[in-house]
């Protein structure tokens, strides 16, 4: 398995405060990587750096190397909009746009220049099917997306992200605002999606990491403490801090 994202000695500051310290990590393609750690450990910040969503915060400063398919994502020749098309994102709280279900999914393709109605129809149908929500919404594509339940909204957001044909999907605690049934639907979905996509997921829920991820990275106070095969990390953690965290001594 080749590595789609490689990070070398990355540091990140919010103004004077250093939020990430010397992160080194290689993320294999077509697998699920989980980021765990207590609140404020930097895992979400790190996730958002991977498609440069942190650019939106003016005080952020980043050093080190983040390579996507061998290319530095902070390089001057990188088109950040194209980068975000290839590295899509699903947020903690479902955030469909206040427009129809169809328009939500078609938003990305339209942004990137798809105009033909037939082609858009195809993309919308396929994306909704891939996100396992087609059956529930196929009769109400023109209805406002805000009328869906929370779990449906989150799957719609996944469909919306898939519609631009990304290679990587960043998921920032995608189930933390959902009920258990919606959560298990999304977990099943991610396992299915890893056949075609690389998934990186921040989660607060360690059982979730065990259930679905192939690799797990444990973050603490801005450092990447331990990273490896999920089973190994949870059964025989190398670092004392990892062991303390996964056995529930803090966090």
């Amino acid at each position, binding site marked *: 398995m080749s590595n789609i994202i490689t990070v070398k000695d990355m540091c990140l500051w919010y103004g004077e405060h250093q939020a990430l310290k010397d992160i080194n990590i290689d993320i294999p393609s077509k697998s699920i990587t989980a980021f765990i750690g207590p609140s404020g450990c930097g895992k979400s910040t790190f996730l958002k750096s991977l*498609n440069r*969503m942190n650019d*939106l915060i*003016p005080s952020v400063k980043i050093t080190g190397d983040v390579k996507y398919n061998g290319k530095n994502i902070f390089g001057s020749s990188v088109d950040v*909009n*194209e*980068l*975000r*098309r290839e590295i*899509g*994102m699903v*947020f903690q*709280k479902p*955030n*469909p*746009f*206040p*427009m129809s279900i169809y328009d939500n999914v078609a*938003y*990305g393709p339209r*942004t*990137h220049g798809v105009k033909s109605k037939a082609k858009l129809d195809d993309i919308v149908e396929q994306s909704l099917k891939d996100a396992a929500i087609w059956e529930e919404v196929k009769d109400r594509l023109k209805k*406002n997306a*805000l*009328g869906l339940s929370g779990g449906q909204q989150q799957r719609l*957001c996944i469909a*919306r*992200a898939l519609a*631009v044909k990304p290679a990587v999907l960043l998921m920032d605690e995608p189930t933390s605002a959902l009920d258990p049934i919606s959560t298990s639907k999304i977990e099943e979905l991610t396992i299915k999606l890893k056949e075609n996509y690389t998934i990186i997921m921040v989660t607060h829920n360690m059982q979730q990491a065990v259930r679905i991820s192939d690799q797990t990275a444990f973050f603490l106070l801005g450092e990447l403490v331990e990273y490896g095969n999920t089973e190994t990390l949870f059964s025989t953690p190398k670092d004392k801090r990892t062991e303390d965290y996964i056995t529930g001594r803090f966090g």
Partner: protein
Amino acid sequence: MQNSKISKARKAYISIMKALMWLSVAVTCSLVAFLIIYVFVKGIPNISWGLLSEKPSYLSGKIGILPDILNTVYIVIATLLIVLPIGVGAAIYLTEYAQNKKLVNIIEYAAETLSGIPSIIYGLVGMLFFCQFLNMKTSLLAGALTLVIMNLPTIMRTTQESLKTVPQSYREGAFGLGAGKWRVIHTVVLPGCVDGIITGCILSVGRILGESAALLFTAGFAHALNGIIDGLSSSGCTLTVALYVYAKEQGEFGIAFAIAAILMILTLIINLSAMLVEKYFRKRRNV
């Protein structure tokens, strides 16, 4: 015993306060009711089809306010056409693009101060700058431009406030799909705050309708019947200015009251439509 004394005093105090509150409510309501009824009673009998559909003639001594109605419409259209793009554009820049928060605060503070200045001062500046310095003479366009300056803060601030109510998560969602800044703004952010912009517009229309001081100096007093293009470049009287002219210079109080009644009805219609528009958009946003 002492307890009941206190409670008696308290009871008296409560009933006096209650009576005072009732009194103030009664005064406020009866003032408003009196004003409305007085204007309608005095004005409505003077409204006739002839008044609404003709222009005045000194030869026949006829009075008609059609030119004034049209002038009012022209000045509203011209002002909105100019003030909307500038005000909304400024609001978008200040809320979405500007990085220097200190400067933005200063501009917002200045805009708020500007909207509190007496309108006669706008009239004076408009006369000196548009009519004389830019040589537009007294014309509806000069009047409209003066009203643009007057209404710019309103449009800008209401747009800004409604831009701020669009959830950050919509912007993040769109950026996350690889949309550029301008695309995010015009496809996700602006549609989310159309109601705010429309509310600002309607407030401004109300202000334009009611404005006379700023127009006395700049737009002039002519009652000629013009199309919009000719109308803008020539002197023209709006309804409120006409009210002033008929009452103060010609002693035609009946006509003045008729105009007042028409203005009042227009204001009522505008406020109602503002309410309906806001309701409609709120409903649409919440499904």
